[in-house]
């Protein structure tokens, strides 16, 4: 019986200790401002957008999924 209580409480205590350690570790992290992070995301997009085939057109010959285009397309 004594062991019973001890085991249950120590289990939850060790869990709580782990959570506290995890939080302490996360608190120590070096963070940057959202404005800087956003600027970096935008810069990456800008640098690669010209190579993005889903945004910038590529010739049909380079995209194997597209059939040959006909002169008139039905809208």
């Amino acid at each position, binding site marked *: 019986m004594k062991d019973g209580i001890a085991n249950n409480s120590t289990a939850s205590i060790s869990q709580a200790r782990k959570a506290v350690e995890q939080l302490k570790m*996360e608190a120590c992290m070096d963070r940057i401002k*959202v404005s800087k992070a956003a600027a970096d995301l935008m810069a990456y997009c800008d640098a690669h957008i010209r190579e993005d085939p889903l945004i910038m057109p590529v010739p049909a010959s380079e995209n194997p999924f597209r059939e040959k285009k006909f002169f008139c397309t039905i809208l």
Partner: protein
Amino acid sequence: VLNFKYRGSPLIPEMATQEVQLNETLAHLKTESETLKSKLEEERAKLHDVELHQVAEKVEGLGQFVMKTRRTLKGHGNKVLCMDWCKDKRRIVSSSQDGKVIVWDAFTTNKEHAVTMPCTWVMACAYAPSGCAVACGGLDNKCSVYPLSLDKNENLAAKKKSVAMHTNYLSACSFTNSDMQILTSSGDGTCALWDVESGQLLQSFHGHAADVLCLDLAPSETGNTFVSGGCDKKANVWDMRSGQCIQSFETHESDINSVRYYPSGDAFASGSDDATCRLYDLRADREVAIYSKESIIFGVSSVDFSLSGRLLFGGYNDYTINVWDVLKGTRVSILFGHENRVSTLRVSPDGTAFSTGSWDHTLRVCDDCYFLSNLTTLQPRVTFLVTSCNVCCFSLFFFFLSDLGLRMRTQRMKW
């Protein structure tokens, strides 16, 4: 949880004091935990000086997109649950509820290989980086690797290798940079890294409080981390070597079904049953964008970025695919076509197309219909189209008239 049975009248006096002490320690730890959590929120809030879409206001808008289905892959007998592209940008592996795993050539829509798993609900499948093997698993709680042979007649099931063993269903799997290691996530709440050759567990990742539903490896340049999402509404970023959870994000309101890294590795997107997709920046350590609309009420099953990271594709349970402008937070396209919920979505390795799998038993490969997409922004094309249509119509009309005139003249001559 303390055993309340003994609270009333402990048999030995020492037990009472010990119990009180343990209670105090637990309460103390809980308070410390709460204090640390609010401090963490404070630190994060201090750096929240602006919103992403505000910074992105000066960026040129994308306009409307028109995506078109180029291929429909039919052959599965039941719901398609997962798919993955091969690095050769043409082959696809897909798995379904009926236990079948099929390897397709997406260009020709031919089935190259088919394997029947011993279990139903194959929820995870992945292509090896070399293209020589596929991994899959589901309700069998295992992840198995099948080497693909060039001989079509060879029984793939004979060469099957059981790699991962979990205590609940396998929800996702992914090879690391080589064919040698596999990362898995499971309904047992853990993720694990395995050696393919020996089946040995190399590292396990504990921290989720419920089923882990998805994972994604960081792009190779950014180091050895991966992100996982689970039913506990948390997205955790892990260090693959130490097994440590290095960052945790809890802003979703329901299960996270899909996570995907931004191409630069500095951020990741998530899709959830709460009908939103969210973008989390790793260096700012917070959520920086939400992609949602009041009209969208069904959960997101899978997300993926286009090559530049400017577009975010989301497969939804209302059978549609919504395409979002990542920077501005607006929707640029909505795709219809599937006749049941979209369960899986991946952009091809070179970004030319994206593939979706659905509960309607099919997979589709789609890309951008540039001509139509650019129609509204390129005035000359519109003018050309209208003029050419008019010319065609008028010439047809004149042809018809002249033909009629000829007939009437011949009729008159007859009389």
